[in-house]
């Protein structure tokens, strides 16, 4: 039997974007066992939301759990608070929430793809993807007023309206982006040196995906057709605006890149459908009630399924708020999927899982 070494890839590492910690047991550079922990960025948000902030202010606190999927957290919390208050929001507010969720998905998927390219060693592609991503940040600034922490969904509706000239500029910029997306698709699919690093690395089968309960583009690349937008229709009408499910079969890093790129085409079509068919109505439902009872909500963030549970007791302050981030469900699969791979491909595999530690260890 060969000699075993324990090598950590720790919280500070030159290629890690997020502060996770894995301790690998390796034999001749092949990994045989993994230990994980995530205790570097715990901020006590659930405790603060149940003791210091009133229930209408919690939507602003929760939007600062994560910088990339900020709209998913505020929308999910607003939906669970509206269930506790037993109110319905107006129709225009639902469509505007869907518009910003899809714009957010574009910029988040392009960021993940650029990091996969960087960790595979292809820095020119990293810079090119980031250059093409810049237009989505400017569009979000025009719609929501800020580039990352958009405080767009509030309890009862949305905070701002969509002006006609902003809608016009969104359609124009998307038309300019589609040929650029075709160019990126061509490189990620056909480039020979990139495929040497990505094909076959970090693979996971469909049975393992079901056994380990994984979510997001990670599961869809392995063939498991799970997407919250396909499963819930009561709160936001996804099927009406043209949602389609994208799956691949091989389950490795190459398949995850393909899933993310193909989802961008679907997002662009959804945004165009929403702008062409936006209904007229109010933006906020006012109410003077207090939250009471228990409720749960699921929503599709760019990285997977987001789950919220809230319990109220008829006062201004909530009794319990529980947040489950999508990376939380994928940590168990991450720890299992390293076995059999070489230590040198560990950074590329971690980047392709798209971890977001701020959501996981809040």
């Amino acid at each position, binding site marked *: 039997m060969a000699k075993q070494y324990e090598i950590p890839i720790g919280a500070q590492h030159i290629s890690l974007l997020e502060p996770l910690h894995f301790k690998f047991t390796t034999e001749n550079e092949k990994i045989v066992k993994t230990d994980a*922990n*995530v*205790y570097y960025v*715990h901020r*006590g948000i*659930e*405790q603060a939301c149940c003791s210091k902030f009133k229930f209408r202010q919690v939507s602003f606190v929760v939007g600062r759990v994560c910088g990339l999927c900020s709209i998913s957290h505020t929308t999910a919390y607003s939906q669970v608070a509206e269930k506790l208050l037993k109110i319905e929001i107006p129709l225009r507010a639902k469509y505007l929430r869907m518009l910003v969720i899809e714009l957010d998905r574009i910029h988040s998927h392009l960021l993940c793809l650029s990091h996969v390219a960087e960790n595979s060693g292809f820095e020119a592609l990293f810079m090119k993807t980031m250059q093409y991503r810049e237009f989505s940040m400017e569009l979000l600034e025009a719609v929501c007023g800020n580039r990352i922490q958009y405080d767009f969904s509030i309890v009862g509706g949305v905070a701002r309206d969509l002006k006609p000239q902003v809608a016009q500029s969104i359609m124009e910029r998307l038309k300019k982006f589609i040929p650029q997306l075709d160019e990126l698709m061509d490189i990620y699919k056909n480039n020979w040196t990139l495929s040497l690093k990505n094909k076959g690395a970090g693979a996971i089968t469909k049975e393992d995906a*079901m*056994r*380990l*309960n994984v*979510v997001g583009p990670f599961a869809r690349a392995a063939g498991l057709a*799970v997407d919250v937008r396909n*499963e*819930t229709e009561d709160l936001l009408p996804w099927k009406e605006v043209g949602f389609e499910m994208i799956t691949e079969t091989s389950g490795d890093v190459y398949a995850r890149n393909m899933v993310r790129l193909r989802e961008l085409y679907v997002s662009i079509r959804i945004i165009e459908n929403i702008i062409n068919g936006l209904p007229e109505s109010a933006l906020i439902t006012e109410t003077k009630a207090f939250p009471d009872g*228990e*409720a*749960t909500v*699921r929503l599709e963030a760019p990285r997977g*399924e987001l*789950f919220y*549970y809230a*319990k109220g007791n008829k006062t201004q302050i909530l*009794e*319990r708020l*529980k947040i*489950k981030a999508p990376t*939380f*469900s994928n*940590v*168990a*699969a991450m720890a299992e999927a390293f076995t059999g791979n070489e230590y040198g491909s560990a950074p590329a595999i971690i980047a392709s899982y798209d971890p977001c530690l701020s959501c996981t*260890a809040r």
Partner: protein
Amino acid sequence: MKKIETTIENLKKDIAAFYKPELQHFMVMNAVDLGEKIEVQWFFSNYAHPCETICFYTLVSPETEIPSIRDIVVSAWVAEAELVDLMNIKVENTQKGFVLEPDFESGPLRKKK
């Protein structure tokens, strides 16, 4: 959301009878501090349409040891480790030190008397 009550003795039997990997997936565990007792919840969700959220819950006193379901649901060790750190409950075969550092005070989410 459908809530089903269970007890500590029947927990593994109920979940093993209910959970099939092709039809449901396990989401997360949760615990609510009600003062004298703690309500521990396990959340599952269907893959098929129409999907609903199913919650198994039980009321225990804070010193009870809760059995671990990781031989039925493989990825449950993450949720159990988080609750051991944050709520200071006992789960079999689980140590502290996953979401909080091992020498941090335990149970910061419990209600202070």
